[in-house]
């Protein structure tokens, strides 16, 4: 390489660097200050002692982590996992067939169907939750309809139950399952399905052997998008669960706004973020395995 070429290369490299800085610099800096820094702050707070009116006193301690294992908190984790888990399973049971059905529509209707699924997600979350207060109320339309039809004799206590919390979370996050699952089904090469049929597999067998495993990464994305936010949601347990169902989200909110124990609240928040990261890592590993890009040496 001649010196002239080298210097030219250096110059264009510098130009690319400065263009990068001009375009991406402000945004990346902003994200670093207002996302990364706050999350690191949360991580830092977990190792220090609570201040009297919130905040922290800079005395190093590991007690905050120890506290997370107290039975009262383990119970909250357990309840949260259970409720978020049930919500996730229900979302998949309803979302997968819905996504599958949408892929089988004509292209024009496919777009309409997808927009209709996503639309509620973009509306005010509180209002969507509030709608269920009305629906599930003992004087609400659901109970009234059941009474009028003679199916029940007295109004059911639907509101302020764990069931109501699950319905509310399902309502909030169902669109987040349909989208990634839809995308993954859409991506399955139709020739693979034909190949399975050609080799003697019936419809059900083809679905189980080909479609399902190949859409598993999309299913996992959908599951993560329901499971993690469900754990961190404090509005639904409060409004639809009547505060009787305490989830991880409620715990975090209370530690920050009422108990004023920021370090302990940080530990729990860190758990939720860690869960998200771990699940995404798991998803990526499984996706790689399924596509056969990396196979463990036997």
């Amino acid at each position, binding site marked *: 390489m001649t010196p002239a070429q080298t210097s030219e290369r250096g110059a264009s490299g510098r130009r690319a660097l400065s263009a990068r800085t*001009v375009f991406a610099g402000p945004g990346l800096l*902003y994200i670093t200050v207002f*996302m990364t820094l706050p999350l690191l702050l949360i991580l830092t707070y977990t190792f220090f002692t609570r201040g009297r009116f919130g905040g922290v006193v800079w005395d190093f301690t590991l007690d905050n982590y120890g506290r997370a294992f107290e039975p009262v908190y383990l119970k909250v984790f357990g309840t949260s996992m259970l409720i978020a888990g049930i919500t996730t399973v229900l979302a998949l049971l309803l979302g997968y*067939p819905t996504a599958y059905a949408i892929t089988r529509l004509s292209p024009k209707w496919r777009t309409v169907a997808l927009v209709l699924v996503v639309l509620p997600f973009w509306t005010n979350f509180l209002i969507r939750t509030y709608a269920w207060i009305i629906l599930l109320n003992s004087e609400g339309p659901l109970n009234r309809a059941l009474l009028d039809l003679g199916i029940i004799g007295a109004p059911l206590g639907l509101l302020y139950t764990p069931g109501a919390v699950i319905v509310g979370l399902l309502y909030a996050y169902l669109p987040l399952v349909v989208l990634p699952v839809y995308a993954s089904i859409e991506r399955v090469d139709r020739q693979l399905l034909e190949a399975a049929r050609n080799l003697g597999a019936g419809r059900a067998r083809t679905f189980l052997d080909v479609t399902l495993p190949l859409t598993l990464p999309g299913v996992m994305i959908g599951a993560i998008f329901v499971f993690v936010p469900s754990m961190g949601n404090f509005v639904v347990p409060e409004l639809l669960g009547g505060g009787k169902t305490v989830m991880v989200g409620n715990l975090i909110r209370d530690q920050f706004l009422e108990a004023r124990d920021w370090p302990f609240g940080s530990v729990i928040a860190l758990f939720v973020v860690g869960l998200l990261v771990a699940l995404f890592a798991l998803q990526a590993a499984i996706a790689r395995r399924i596509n056969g890009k990396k196979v463990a040496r036997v």
Partner: protein
Amino acid sequence: MSRVGWLRVPLTVTYVFLYLPIAVLVVMSFNASKTPFTWTGFSTQWYGELASNALIREGFINTMIVAVSATVLATALGTLLAIGIARYFRSAIVEAYSLAPAIIPDLALAIGLLALFSLVGVTLSLFSVLLSHVVFGMAFVAAVVIARLGQTDASLEEASRDLGAGAVTTFFRITLPSLAPAIIAGALLVFTLSLDEFVIAFFTDGPTTPTLPIVIYSMVRFGVTPEINALAALLLLVSFTIVLSAQRITRLTDSV
């Protein structure tokens, strides 16, 4: 047709599940009764009361201040970020980092921002809400614009440079116009997101300037009133209109 037939079942269940609550809400907003549950007759009185409710009016003004400023800032930063990533970085890690604010649990972001603001001594106010909304809004704009950049050809810009246009001219004459639909769609999404955002505002807002979602939250917490039905119906209308326009704008460009 019969083999697709059973798939109508989940589709129907999903759409009924998604839209029944919304439909009930809208119908009930025209209910004359004082309890929001039982239908006694058609009335638009709750929409009238809404306008005279000082708390809601104040919340609405606060929310508009935040949503409009957040939209402007997030759109500008997010567009530049998207161009930087799609045209100069081309790195999956940087892209993931830029989109992370949209995926990170909102509660974690909310308490982190609260911790940051209190550490550096920023008084909680609409300004701190604005700073917070920009971070995830920017990620949404970047996502939409990156998707659009993936469909457009970098050689358009290279051709412009080759024909003698400077970097700045190329940016304003070539890059920006070709991205306009995506940028507008992204801006509309940020606007609805900010308009409806509750969790982060709840933690980063000052006590004297509640945004509309915070007002709604406190109203809903203390009971159900028909006014909320009317407010809900209006907000649904606004969100639906904005999201459908965003969808129309981006799809128009897909066909070009």
